[in-house]
């Protein structure tokens, strides 16, 4: 198998995109605390969906349920027709705190998922794929370095390369830019936009940042907190089809709408905390 055949983009969007993720009436308790209450949604092939909500609304829990790291108390999460807890090659996660192995070099970190999932490939092929993505994100020269030698932005690039290297059909991103400074976050947003468009992956993107969500997403899921429930499912596809109108009119409208919702949520959350 050559690297070209090993590197495959997700299939091009069909006229009716297939559903990749189906969350059906999911409830999740952490001990006796109800974190998610009756959450349902579905996400199709090639969609970029952001999940927004106040802190503690269960966004990251939802992402872990999609990754299969957690199992729902009630309901089910189905990924490409299978239960999410069944480990397969469909998903890869980009973590807020990078989660790079400090004892592995940059190249070894990027190869990590390939080593675990693609035993069918020879080491040389896995290395070539890892280097392809390292070059793609501009870290080709850093292949032999250790994570501590990198800046936060570079570490997250490695995290991105590691996730893209396994060529998942679904990319799960848990506040990937929140630990970075504003400039690095902006640059990486551009990188992600480019990579996602190029590789046509389905992305579930958890964030606190409204602008990030509006810039990157096709859809936004708004979550209410205590317990976490899905409050609104906003599609931006139609508005974004006219880029000029989107930038001049709709962007600000949607931003105000999202902020109005979040402001109320944060205020309610703080009040609850004070009372308790």
């Amino acid at each position, binding site marked *: 198998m050559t690297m070209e055949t090993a590197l495959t983009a997700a299939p091009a969007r069909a006229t009716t995109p297939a559903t990749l993720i189906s969350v059906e009436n999911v409830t999740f308790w952490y001990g006796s605390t109800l974190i998610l209450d009756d959450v349902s949604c579905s996400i199709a092939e090639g969609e970029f969906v952001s999940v927004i909500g106040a802190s503690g609304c269960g966004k990251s829990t939802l992402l872990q349920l999609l*990754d*299969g*790291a957690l199992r729902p108390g009630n309901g089910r999460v189905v990924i490409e027709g299978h239960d999410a807890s069944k*480990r397969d*090659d469909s*998903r*890869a*996660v980009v*973590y807020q*705190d990078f*989660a790079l*192995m*400090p*004892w*592995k070099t940059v190249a070894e970190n990027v190869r*990590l*998922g390939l080593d*675990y*999932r693609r035993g069918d490939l020879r080491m040389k092929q896995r290395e070539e794929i890892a280097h392809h993505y390292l070059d793609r994100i501009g870290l080709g*020269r*850093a*292949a*032999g*370095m*250790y*994570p*501590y*030698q990198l800046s936060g932005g570079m570490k997250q690039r490695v995290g991105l390369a*590691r996730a893209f290297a*396994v060529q998942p059909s679904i990319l799960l991103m848990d506040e990937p830019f929140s630990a970075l400074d504003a400039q690095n976050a902006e640059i990486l947003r551009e990188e992600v936009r480019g990579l996602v468009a190029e590789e046509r992956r389905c992305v579930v993107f958890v964030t606190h940042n409204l602008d990030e969500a509006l810039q990157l997403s096709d859809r936004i899921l708004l979550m209410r907190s205590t317990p976490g429930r899905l409050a609104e499912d906003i599609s931006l596809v139609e508005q974004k089809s006219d880029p000029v109108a989107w930038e001049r009119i709709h962007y600000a409208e949607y931003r105000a709408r999202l902020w109005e919702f979040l402001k109320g949520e944060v205020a309610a959350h703080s009040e609850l905390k004070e009372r308790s």
Partner: protein
Amino acid sequence: MTTPMHISEERSSTGLRAPRESWISKQRSRWLPVATVIVILLVWEILGRTIGWNPLFFSYPSQIWSGFLSLAAGPLWNDLAVSGTEFVLGMLISIALAIPVGFLLGTRRNAYFALDPIISALYATPVLVLAPLLVIWFGLGIQSKIAIVVILSTFSIMINLTEGVRATDVGLLRAARSFGAGRWRVYRDVIFPSVIPYFVTGLRLAVGRAMIGVVVGEYIASTVGIGFQIEADAQVFATPRYLAGVAVIVVLAVIVTELLKLLERKLAPWRRLDGQD
């Protein structure tokens, strides 16, 4: 090792380079400890020669060196061979016991809750009080000293290993599993590497305790060994030879500790490079 990207020899717009650090300043971590030891030895030697204390109770470096030469011409090498055997075998048994139990306690919560209080109590107890009993059980030979080394050093390694396993970054475990690592690979790629620094710390503590075990064991009941020799010289007030024996132990302890640091650098290069050692 690849040179970090951010380290480069740049010139300013006026052609100036960054000021260079002198060799003396750069290497101070190497020469300062040596200089300190030399100064202490010199002051000690001068005081010893000028004050004229009773040679039965006090000695100074040049006399101790003579004592060392006398030891080296006599029983020293045989004593070191016996004590070294006791130390090495005791440490090996300690490591063999501590690794499985340490990992068990680190990975199994019930085992941890059940056994941790007992192990912590045994670690905190001055188990040297058991030494006479161990001599009765195992006799005057090296077996009793090995037993003393084992009960003294096992818990340091075990407790550190347990803590290391428990302190493994949950985020890294989650990432490894998410990317498809099975149980063995999680151990190989996440738990083992993150435990290495804790393991070496446990070894360092264990080495100190093991040396105490060997010396005290030989002190209590033995016919050979460096501890026995120190005790024998102390009994006859051969102070220079007695202190030479102590100095030999000090030098060996420093060598073993440095070897362990070297081992950690070899096993965990990311920590050395991170300046954490």
